[in-house]
């Protein structure tokens, strides 16, 4: 059987979509952090640790939860493959400013988020996923690479399902596109389909 895209979520322009259908829209928030907090509350994610997270983890947590909460059961071996352009630039700048201003003294609460794969760790913890995790960085969304890597994970028996996608945030510019792929009938996992859905 072929590998298919079984569900997907987009977060952009103050809106959240699940499988192409708009499920949340906030017309007031002018900043990313305000919008993502409203989305977190709207979806009743009830995960207080959310408030401590950096921007990238917050975006990943909302996008990942929208996709995973709709499942009857989450496969604990579902792999996570995320990618973006700006790594975790917002928290990196905050950490850098704090060490520049405070004679080299850093805040451990910030430092811990200065790696992009922490977003994968946060989702793994919340959904108890003991699975393959990788974070890639590209100049732009790279559907061909993501298709091949996801295919390798499924076909080489590293995972039966993969939560994959693009998760980019830099100050108030953000765009998340996450999808679940597995061996199933449905929308074929290929570059063309991913480009249509982002």
């Amino acid at each position, binding site marked *: 059987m072929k590998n298919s895209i079984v569900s997907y979520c987009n977060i952009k322009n103050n809106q959240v979509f699940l499988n192409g259908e708009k499920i949340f829209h906030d017309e007031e928030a002018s900043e990313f952090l305000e919008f993502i907090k409203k989305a977190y509350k709207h979806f009743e994610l009830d995960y207080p640790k959310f408030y401590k997270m950096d921007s990238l983890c917050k975006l990943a947590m909302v996008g990942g939860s929208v996709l995973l909460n709709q499942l009857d059961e989450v496969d604990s071996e579902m792999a996570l493959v995320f990618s973006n352009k700006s*790594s975790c630039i917002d928290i*990196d700048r905050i950490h850098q400013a704090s060490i520049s201003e405070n004679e080299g003294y850093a805040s451990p609460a910030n430092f811990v988020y200065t790696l992009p794969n922490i977003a*994968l760790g946060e989702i793994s913890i919340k959904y108890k996923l*003991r699975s393959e995790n990788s974070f890639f*960085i590209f100049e732009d969304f790279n559907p061909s690479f993501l298709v091949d890597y996801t295919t390798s994970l499924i076909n080489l028996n*590293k995972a039966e399902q993969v939560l994959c996608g693009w998760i980019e945030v830099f100050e108030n510019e953000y765009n998340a596109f996450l999808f679940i792929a597995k061996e199933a009938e449905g929308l074929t996992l290929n570059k063309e389909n991913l480009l249509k859905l982002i």
Partner: protein
Amino acid sequence: MEASTKIPVYVQKGDCITPLGFGFEKNIEKVENGVSAISLNEANHIDSTPFYGATINPFVLEHRFSESNIKGVFTPLEKMMLLAVESIKKKYGKLFNEKCGLIVSSTKGNIQALENDDFSTYYLHQLAKKIGKTIGIDEEPVVLSNACVSGIMAISVAKRMIQVGRYDHVVIVAGDSFSKFVFSGFQSFQAVAEKPCQPYDEDRTGITLGEAAAAMFVTKDKKLFQEIPHFEILGDSSINDANHISGPSRTGEGLYRSVSNALKEAKINASEIDVISAHGTATNYNDEMEAQAFNRLQLEKKPLYSLKGYFGHTLGTAGLLETVVALGCAARNNIPQSIGYKKHGVTLPLNVTKEKIQKEVNVVLKTASGFGGSNTAVIFKKCGNHEK
């Protein structure tokens, strides 16, 4: 696209640029002689008080780079990475445009760019493109930024992308430099040792940071390695602990599962592993977690060492650098001493090497663990002259 685990994938010994030396041979020689690169540094741009670290002398780097034929304007990190991949380019450069991928492994890349709030060199994809362009790989580079497992995970990603048919060969270049950004962060965790780090030792108090670059060539074409020592990648896995973002699982769950999966794919038993090149950062939690995992795997009697006592913790380079050295030593049937280990300091038994051992080594297990709960295990088997 069909992926097949039946496609065997090979690595050669690789190369590295470290404070111990520029190039593979110098590094292997120093490691075999138990020489550490960790020294007391006085560098105001990192810290106002002296600190232990494994740092590359910037004047030596400049000099060595100026002696190379590489043209262009580069940051010190880029120079390290370009020098590390130079021997691979010389040997395999003619294949760089024949389904050859480039994976760049780094946690923070040119993070110093942020000191002046300058984003122009912050981006990791820019770093990767610069490396790709300079060595002549046209394919868009892939950056892997997965904390301290990045370097070893890059080998795993390369193998998978070859087995899925995307590439025939992959060049991996890993690099991270010694920055105030990272040093101050580990200090804020009170995780930096006041003496050179002592993995698995009773008196260990934390990590020592380092900087280095490493490179490796991965291929499905065994013929390319006919005359040089090489290894087959038998199995690999990277399983998250799903426990804590800045501390490992107490039971070593993710590492245990990573090694178990790698063994399963390799179709070998734990008893067939000859040596473990472990992560061994010398923090209390990490070393204890590894002891738990290796005991659960019944690997506690296997010779095990950490190279952190030689190079410090080189972050996104560590896994690749330590593989280059582990395979280099294995090719010469050596198991290095785990520097800094005197009195056993984890609660379960481990066979940490107190001195260099000379013995036949065929199967090498390399592991790493990192922030975000990540773990990676890769198993290598010696091929070539030693093939049975």
